[in-house]
């Protein structure tokens, strides 16, 4: 039964971090190239536009949910299971979500990269 709790919490971490990453990526694409904007309008505008972007705020909220899900997961399961499982599944989930929601061109090169990194992270964090 504890395994069910642990895996539910891991899935909650993965879901919340993927939602957060996609929203943050979308927010920053809307803000535009930060370096160029800084040179043109100043740092205050960059910060104001980022913090005023609804996608950014929802993204940060999703990241907070992911963090608290991590705390729950760690209280039910071992860190040697939770950390690698959550990290590598988040890589895979992000690739799928970026393709669907951000219309990023996830070609064969990026799929191989994501799979290698996800496998490597699973081994390293385990």
């Amino acid at each position, binding site marked *: 039964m504890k395994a069910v709790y642990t895996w539910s919490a891991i899935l909650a971490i993965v879901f919340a971090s993927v939602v957060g990453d996609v929203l943050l*990526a979308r927010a920053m694409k809307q803000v*535009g190239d930060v370096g160029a904007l800084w040179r043109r309008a100043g740092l205050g505008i960059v910060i104001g536009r*980022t913090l005023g972007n609804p996608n950014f705020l929802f993204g940060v909220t999703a990241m907070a949910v992911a963090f608290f899900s991590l705390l729950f997961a760690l209280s039910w399961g071992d860190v040697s299971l939770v950390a690698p499982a959550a990290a590598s599944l988040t*890589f895979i989930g992000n690739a799928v979500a*970026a393709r669907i929601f951000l219309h990023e*061109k996830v070609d064969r090169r*990026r799929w191989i*990269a*994501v799979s290698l990194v996800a*496998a490597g992270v699973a081994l390293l964090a385990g």
Partner: protein
Amino acid sequence: MDFRKYLVLAGVTVFAAAGDSMLSHGMKQTGSISVHHLRGVIFAVLNPWVAVGILLLLAFFAAYMTALSWADLTYVLPATSLGYVLLALVARFVLHEHVSPLRWLGIVLITGGVGFVAGGPSLTEHHAALPHAEHTEDGNDPLAVATAKTPLLAKDTRNGAPHVRVTGRL
């Protein structure tokens, strides 16, 4: 991708790895905290390792947001996963911890993945085909509007037709 952008990606990698290790080091000094001892959280922040760790993680977040403003999520995430490798190397050569063969295999896989993604484009073409997208004041991507209206244009730009430009504001 100019030199400055590689510097930002390096910043994402190094700040995350350094911030995490400093937090971890500091939290081991302060001992475990719990909801019943919330004062422990305040003492934890007063620990210099924890304080510097938090500052580094803020720097990581700023660099991560900067990178996402000009590169794809599926480029930034694998490209900055070298942080895991960095942590393992610090554990082995600075802290003299034992790194098992399975972990060395993990390092090799991540490094290979980073090499793969770094060899490709950093941004999907439907953004790259429109370099002046950043100059729109309302923050909307004009090409996104254009591609929504004309799917054919979207297909062409996605396939990498290099000189498809939408002239003027939409």
